[in-house]
């Protein structure tokens, strides 16, 4: 009996050994929790997903970077000290800062920039179209004139577009020497860069143990101020409840992807240890109708749907208020944005529009969306809204992969989805939403409207800012009346963060386009 008792005591003692560091994270370390399944690579020429991009941005320095000044994204020099644009707007010359080093101590030269950009074009991975399509770059477009000067020849895209693209991940500058040392079979370091880094940004990738954690440590050779946080650990926590529990227990500092209900709980009930941080997200959430399908061929039916949807319920109930109403394709604060929210739920008007179009008794339609809890809930709301005007709808939940596959082939009747902004310029929104010739959203919904397409295209080339703004203004009006999209809102992104975290608001302001870990401290 005595021995058994001892064993039991031993077991409890063992249990009681505190978890290493539980609730006791060092001052210079930031621990974040996320479902890291989205991480595929840290290669700036390949990485294109929202969360990983934020990390890549903090590992690689670009020629320019985006800062937030007075609530607007403003390009500022990163590796480049200054730059010039030729008169025709096509030739750009960048002058590099002197004495800047890569993390391994090698100096940053113009040839590294040339190598990195050519590599991105040559690899032709997911983000490559930003270079090749948006800026019209080819391998010959980039030239290192001398050690500190590099020239880029574009297709004449507006300055804001060019600088925004160069500030994106794909513009990350790699250490040519180091990458070449790790080439295998002429892959330009593709395999090695997946989980190693060779940049000049404030952090370096220390370890990526897949499905466990990602560790960044500070770059000792960084040209800027040494950040307060020396180590960033991103723990893989696929379960939302797990992330929230760990945050509450103080085992993590920052929890990504907590549920809206948890976020609302943090917002409404002050917690002594945990707070909520929010920022407008750089995405747009919409309901789209296939303009080549049955009743949706008629613009009045599409309008009826736009008037049927209860936008307020979606924003306040489904998203618990974590969204900003925005019914146009331009995101808030973007070039050409003017508030314009003409649609509110109006059942009578919607019914009349439907009757005018010849569907007084409605019809039956399939609404497709993916597994996201929020989108599913939105689909449920839309379903009951449509029922009110006589349209019977069935919700089909697909995996994202399958949904996008069908969507690309114009194979859906109605979809609840969103669009992440690729670079912070109106062009990145107008083209996909209005110009079917770029084969993006307008095309996917078979809205083959030449007027909208030519307007979007013209605005993309217009250098005169005033004229450009006017075109966007007109396009928004036309698009709202005729387009296949019922734009709902721009989401407010949120994170649960520990109360001792400082500077998070600055660091994550404009998230998904801008994210700067160096501004965080404890």
């Amino acid at each position: 009996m005595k021995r058994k008792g001892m064993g039991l005591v031993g077991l409890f003692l063992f249990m009681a050994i505190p978890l290493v560091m539980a609730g006791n994270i060092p001052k210079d370390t930031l621990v974040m929790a996320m479902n890291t399944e989205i991480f595929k690579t840290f290669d700036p020429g390949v990485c294109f997903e929202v969360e990983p991009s934020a990390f890549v941005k903090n590992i690689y320095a670009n020629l320019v970077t985006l800062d937030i000044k007075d609530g607007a994204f403003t390009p500022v020099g990163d590796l480049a000290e200054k730059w010039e644009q030729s008169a025709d707007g096509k030739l750009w010359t960048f002058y590099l800062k002197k004495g800047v080093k890569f993390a391994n101590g090698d100096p940053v030269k113009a040839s590294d920039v040339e190598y990195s950009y050519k590599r991105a074009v040559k690899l032709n991975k997911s983000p490559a179209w930003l270079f090749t399509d948006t800026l019209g770059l080819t391998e010959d477009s980039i030239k290192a004139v001398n050690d500190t000067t590099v020239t880029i020849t574009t297709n004449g895209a507006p300055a804001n577009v060019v600088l925004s693209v160069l500030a994106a991940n794909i513009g990350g500058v790699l250490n040519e020497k180091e990458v070449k040392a790790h080439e295998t079979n002429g892959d330009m370091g593709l395999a090695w860069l997946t989980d190693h880094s060779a940049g000049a940004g404030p952090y370096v990738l220390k370890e990526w143990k897949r499905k466990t954690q990602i560790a960044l440590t500070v770059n000792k050779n960084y040209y800027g101020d040494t950040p307060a946080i020396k180590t960033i650990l991103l723990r893989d926590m696929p379960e939302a409840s797990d992330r929230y529990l760990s945050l509450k227990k103080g085992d993590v500092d920052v929890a990504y992807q907590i549920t809206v209900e948890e976020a609302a709980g943090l917002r409404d009930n002050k917690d002594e240890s945990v707070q909520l941080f929010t920022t407008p997200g750089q995405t747009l959430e919409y309901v789209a109708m296939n303009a080549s399908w049955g009743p949706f061929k008629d613009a009045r039916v599409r309008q009826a749907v736009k008037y049927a949807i209860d936008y307020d319920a979606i924003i306040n109930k489904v998203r618990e208020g974590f969204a900003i109403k925005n019914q146009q394709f331009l995101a808030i604060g973007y070039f050409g944005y003017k508030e314009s929210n003409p649609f509110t739920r109006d059942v009578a008007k919607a019914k009349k529009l439907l009757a005018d179009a010849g569907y007084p008794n409605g019809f039956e339609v399939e609404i497709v969306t993916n597994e996201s809890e929020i989108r599913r809930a939105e689909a449920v709301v839309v379903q009951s809204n449509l029922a009110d005007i006589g349209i019977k709808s069935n919700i089909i939940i697909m995996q994202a992969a399958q949904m996008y596959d069908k969507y690309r082939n114009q194979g859906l009747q109605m979809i609840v989805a969103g669009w992440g902004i690729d670079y912070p310029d109106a062009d990145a929104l107008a083209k996909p939403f209005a110009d079917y010739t770029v084969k993006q959203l307008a095309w996917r919904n078979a809205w083959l409207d030449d007027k909208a397409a030519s307007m979007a295209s013209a605005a993309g080339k217009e250098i005169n800012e005033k004229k450009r703004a006017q075109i966007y203004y007109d396009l928004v009006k036309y698009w709202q009346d005729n387009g296949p999209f019922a734009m709902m809102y721009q989401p407010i992104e949120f994170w649960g963060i520990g109360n001792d975290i400082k500077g998070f608001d600055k660091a994550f302001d404009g998230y998904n386009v801008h994210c700067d870990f160096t501004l965080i401290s404890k």
Partner: protein
Amino acid sequence: MELGSFIIKRLALMVLVIFGVLIIVFIVTRIIPADPVGAILGGNAPPATVDAMRHQLGLDKPIFAQLLDYLGGLLRGDLGTSLVSSRPVLTDILEFLPATIELAVSSIIFAVVLGIILGLLSAVFRNHFIDHFSRVFSILGISLPGFWLGLILILIFYYKLGWLPSGGQYDMFLFPTRTTGLILLDAMIHGEWNVFWNGIKHLILPTFILGYSSTASIARIMRASMLDVLHQNYIRTARAKGLPRKMVILRHALKNALIPVITIIGLEFGSLLSGAVLTETIFAWPGLGRYIVNSLLTLDYPAVSGGTIFIALIYSVVNLAVDILYAAVDPRMRS
């Protein structure tokens, strides 16, 4: 010598079965009605990029050519390239396999030990309270949905009591030295005892959840086999020798009763590998099961094929090993 030819025969059969597994997996993954390229590129990519990617992956070839490509690659030890991670599938699998092996081995040990004890108690105290209790306890193991129980145990042992971690294989701030990839083994090799104990703590809940589900069948076989053995003549002989009951059971009955239990361990290992898929998801375990689930959800079919083939391979090897063990343990099988 008989054993030798038995092993050779089993090996030949195994190769055949694995080949069949391969074909099935290939067919299954190619009938996926969606384009995996969509999964790789996400929602924003324009069609030209999609077509380029499709060509790059050889998806524009006829399916038979794709099968030949795949088989050819296999012979060279190439399981293809993951569409999601862009790494060779084999590299991915070898990264995640050790964690699964660690979990599966600790779970099967847990299940076998607990199952044998429960089965033994059940048989020895047949139809008594202890029997009912241990049977209900083991049957609960296959009845409680592990994915649900796991969540609840995390809530209790991590959040409420703070005794055990919520998931993962080891704590952050630890950067274990790796040699074999098996965390516990590596920790012992390198003398990193804090990693070792930390790893053990992380193993407890997943092992319980995974092993518990296999306990029932082992307990039931053990009980049946023990009841059977207890009625055998040689047990009567042992009792006639005047051996105390405990000795009769431990010395004479136990070993005989264990023989049928061995046969089921292989089968249970299979269901354990299945269960690992769920357990790893709940406990954020960086193993092959989670890799397969995520690959399925992103339609990363080279990864699915590779992972599934690997699981089938492990399962077959374990079963072969169990058969050999069976032959080795039972003297009647040896000759």
